[in-house]
């Protein structure tokens, strides 16, 4: 465990802030360009070489915008909401190892900390929805809270398998335990975590809280200027945080041959984010009751079964937990998913009035 000194604290705070801001800009650029390629168009290519300065131009534009506060808004809460939504995302990076031992605080409950902290964003979103006294905002915020209750449980349960194998909640230890990346030994866990994670950060196809075709812009409908930029930042910072968590927990974090560890870390993050862009370009949006049904009837039972299977495997093959299990677990995953897809019914959404 690294020594916790003030210098260490200061250094990593700066690193994390710079990392998040720069990566968010990279993500915005990547998302716009990749989405454009997937949608048979060009995307921003006029600002700077290959449109690389587009995020900067966006930032400048949004800073110069007039800051509008609705008359009937609850001013204090309205002001605080973007901040409350943003800070938990930064806190996540406190326990993410950028390289061997390179992290702000190697908490022994690291993963639990991540899970707990990410849920706080929801409060910020709800504050935004409530305070802006707009019905669309409120609907969006309510959706977010309702969805949180559903996906948080399978999200956590799907990673318990990883924790059982690595025998620790510390992110550093989890990376150290991955001689084989957990995506191979825990494919089902990865899949469930990815789906749940997309719901958590409101990425498509679960972008219910800002469902642009229904709720205009959801919780940040009334926000403009810098406060809107904060929410925009939160959106991408959350995607970055989720990519970082997936990288650390399932893709063996900074570990990799030849290249320096931090580069591996960044590359894996970008790859995971690429997957998110892909899903966003592909899928329509699900409905709120369908998301909850998916979480409770599909993700939850599968994550419990995954936990059970992993526990049995670890118990039986404590020392030889290795490559043998990769094909077995992949087969189990396919069978379970096919079986559940047969059993799983979303049901009807009509309500008699």
């Amino acid at each position, binding site marked *: 465990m690294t020594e916790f000194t003030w210098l260490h604290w200061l250094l990593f705070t700066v690193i994390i802030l710079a990392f998040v801001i720069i990566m968010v800009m990279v993500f915005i650029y990547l998302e716009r360009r990749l989405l454009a390629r997937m949608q048979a168009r060009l995307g921003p290519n006029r600002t700077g070489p290959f449109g690389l300065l587009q995020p900067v131009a966006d930032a400048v534009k949004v800073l110069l915008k007039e800051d509008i506060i609705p008359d009937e808004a609850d001013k204090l809460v309205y002001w605080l909401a973007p901040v409350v939504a943003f800070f938990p995302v930064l806190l996540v990076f406190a326990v993410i190892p950028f390289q061997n031992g390179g992290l702000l605080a190697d908490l022994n409950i690291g993963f639990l900390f991540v899970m707990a902290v990410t849920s706080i964003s929801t409060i910020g979103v709800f504050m935004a929805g409530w305070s802006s006294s707009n019905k669309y905002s409120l609907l969006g915020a309510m959706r977010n809270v309702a969805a949180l209750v559903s996906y948080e449980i399978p999200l956590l349960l799907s990673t318990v398998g990883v924790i059982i194998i690595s025998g620790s909640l510390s992110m550093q230890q989890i990376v150290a335990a991955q001689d084989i990346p957990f995506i191979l030994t825990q494919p089902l866990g990865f899949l469930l975590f990815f789906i749940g994670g997309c719901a958590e950060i409101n990425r*498509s196809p679960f972008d219910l809280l800002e469902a642009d075709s229904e*709720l205009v812009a959801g919780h940040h409908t009334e926000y403009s200027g810098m406060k809107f930029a904060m929410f925009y930042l939160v959106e991408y910072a959350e995607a970055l945080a989720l990519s970082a968590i997936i990288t650390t927990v399932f893709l063996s974090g900074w570990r990799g041959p030849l290249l320096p560890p931090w580069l591996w870390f960044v590359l894996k993050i970008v790859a995971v984010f690429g997957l998110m862009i892909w899903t966003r370009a592909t899928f329509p*949006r*699900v409905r709120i009751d369908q998301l909850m049904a998916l979480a409770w009837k599909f993700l939850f039972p599968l994550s419990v079964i995954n936990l059970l299977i992993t526990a049995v495997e670890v118990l039986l093959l404590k020392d030889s937990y290795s490559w043998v299990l990769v094909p077995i677990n992949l087969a189990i995953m396919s069978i379970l998913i096919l079986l559940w897809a047969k059993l799983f019914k979303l049901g009807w959404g009509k309500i*008699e009035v």
Partner: protein
Amino acid sequence: MSLNTEQFILNIGPSHPSTHGVFRMKATMDGEVIVELEPVFGYLHRGIEKLAEQRTYTGIIPLTDRLDYLSAMSNNLAHCIAVEKLAGIQVPERAEYLRVILAELQRIASHLIAAGALLNDCGAFMTPILYMLREREKILDLFEMVSGQRLTYSYIRPGGLAQDVPAEFLPALQKVVTDLPHFFDEYDQLLKENEILLARSKGVGILTREMAINTSASGPVLRASGIKWDIRKADPYSIYDRFQFEVPTGKAGDCYDRYWVRMLEMRQSLRIVEQAIQQMPAAGDIQTKVPALIRPPVGEIYSRTEVPKGELGFYIVSDNSIAPYRYHIRGPSLLNLTALRDMIVGWKIADAILIFGSIDICMGEVDR
């Protein structure tokens, strides 16, 4: 402890990303569920019917462009057929074929927008509609080639067409016709069995047979409810009786059927275009001699055609002057909206947007 809940009114529109124009739905909500809905329109009213009474019969054509601006060619055709019937004007053979080709291409272009916009309402982030716009673009290029316009063509005139098609039109048309089936297959591959699309649209917003007839719905909305009614077959106008094509129908009358009927109709339209290209005389008149100011005899006529969105009818009363005495438009978009309330009540707000999108209206025609 019991919490007090109350219903609230949510104004969806008139300025909302998914109302396809300035349409407003005044929804009474119980949480996410819509318990009562009142459609409000009229924001785009331009008085086209009254304007038409002061214009010559040819001068009305640009007004019809602005009814359903996504299918201007079909509107031109509908108007011209009405005037021709009223004034007893014959149309040359070649012009008839070209009209059919253009009208069917317009149907494909309009359905592409309808299907793409439906997917957008469903929450797909622009991908389907952009791919569909790519193909629509090719059709618009053809229209630009013949009329010089991309949206408001005013190309079809009483008695024929404004001018003959250029030499490069037919090869370009042939290429589009050969390419399109491949793209239709591509859409089917991506969307036909998309799990989320099925979950969102199957069984949602059902319009029953009886309700569809009672509300005088028409076009794909009617056919999706299982009624084989297509004016091209039931009451053939122009030369539609010379072509072989199917009238695809749905079973359940839900959003998915309305989407799927449109996808099938595009293939049928393509079939008609192919047959028309083969049968079309290579050369010939494009326009009969028509007086510059048409003065139809005293009388009235109701002429209807099958435009992409349904039955577009024009009721014209003539008093033997150069302008109609009364000009009434029966727009499919407006009448298809009649059942909107009954389809939406009981569904969630997300479904309401989808159901509304599946009707495929164009505000220019609703408010005219």
